[in-house]
C-alpha cells in the first residue's frame, strides 16, 4: 500500500466518522461542528480525484458559507443550555431496516456493474475546461442557476423577516 492510498483511507475514515457524528450525536452543537469534518474530508477526496477547482469551491461554499449559516441557525433557535432535549431520535428500528436495504442495494450496484473506464487518466488543471463548458455548452443552465440564486436570496429575506403589524 503506497502512501497516497493510505492517506485516501485516512481521509475517507475521517469523513465517514464525522458524518456519523452529524447524524447520531445527541448534541446539536456537536452535529453542526462535525459537519466541518465531513465537508473538509470531501474536499480532500476531490483533490485526490484531481478536481482542484471543485475542491476550492467546496471549501468556499460549504465550509465558508453553508456551515456558518447552519451555526447561525442553531444559535438563533435554541437555548444552548438545554441541549439534551433538542435533538431526540425517533423510530430507530424501522429506519435502520430501510437504510440497511438501501446500503445493500447501493453496494450490490457498485459491485455488479461493469463500469466503463477511460484508458489513461491525466492530471491537469481543470479550471479552463470548466470555464469553457460553462460559457459554451452549459450557458443556459448557468444563467438559470444565477436566477435560482437570486430568487433564493430574495425569498430567504422575505421569509425570515419579522412581520410588521400595520
Amino acid at each position: 500500500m503506497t502512501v497516497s492510498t493510505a492517506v485516501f483511507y485516512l481521509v475517507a475514515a475521517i469523513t465517514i466518522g464525522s458524518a456519523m457524528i452529524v447524524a447520531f450525536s445527541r448534541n446539536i452543537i456537536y452535529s453542526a461542528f462535525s459537519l466541518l469534518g465531513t465537508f473538509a474530508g470531501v474536499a480532500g477526496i476531490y483533490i485526490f480525484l484531481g478536481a482542484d477547482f471543485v475542491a476550492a469551491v467546496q471549501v468556499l461554499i460549504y465550509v465558508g458559507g453553508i456551515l456558518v449559516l447552519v451555526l447561525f441557525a442553531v444559535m438563533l433557535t435554541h437555548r444552548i443550555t438545554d441541549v439534551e432535549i433538542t435533538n431526540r431520535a425517533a423510530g430507530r428500528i424501522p429506519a435502520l431496516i430501510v437504510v440497511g436495504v438501501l446500503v445493500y442495494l447501493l453496494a450490490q450496484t457498485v459491485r455488479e456493474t461493469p463500469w466503463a473506464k477511460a484508458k489513461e487518466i491525466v492530471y491537469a488543471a481543470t479550471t479552463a475546461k470548466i470555464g469553457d463548458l460553462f460559457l459554451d455548452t452549459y450557458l443556459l443552465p448557468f444563467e438559470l442557476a444565477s436566477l435560482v440564486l437570486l430568487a433564493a436570496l430574495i425569498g430567504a429575506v422575505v421569509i425570515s423577516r419579522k412581520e410588521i403589524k400595520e
Partner: protein
Amino acid sequence: MVPLNHYLILSAAIFAIGVVGVVIRRNLIVVLMSIELMLNAVNLTFIAFSRFLGSMEGQVVVFFVMAVAAAEAVVGLAIIISVFRHRQSLDPQEMQLLKW
C-alpha cells in the same frame, strides 16, 4: 491508485448516513444538515465518474448541484427560523397542521 469502486462505496456510505439522519432525527436543523450530507455524497459520485471516464461534464454538474444546495440551505434555514419564531419548537412531529 485507488479503484473507482472505493470512491463509490464511500459515497454510498455517506449517503446512507444522511438518510439515517433524515429519518431518525427530530430536529429540523439536523434534518437539513443530513440533506447536505446526501448532496455531498452525490457530488462525490459525480466527481469520481468524471475522473474515471476522463470527462469534464461531471464537474460542471457538481457546480449546479452546489448552487441548488446553497439556495436550499438558505431558504430552508429561513423557514426554520420563521417556524421557530411561531411555535418555539423544531420537532417535525409536532408540525401537523395539515393532518386531519
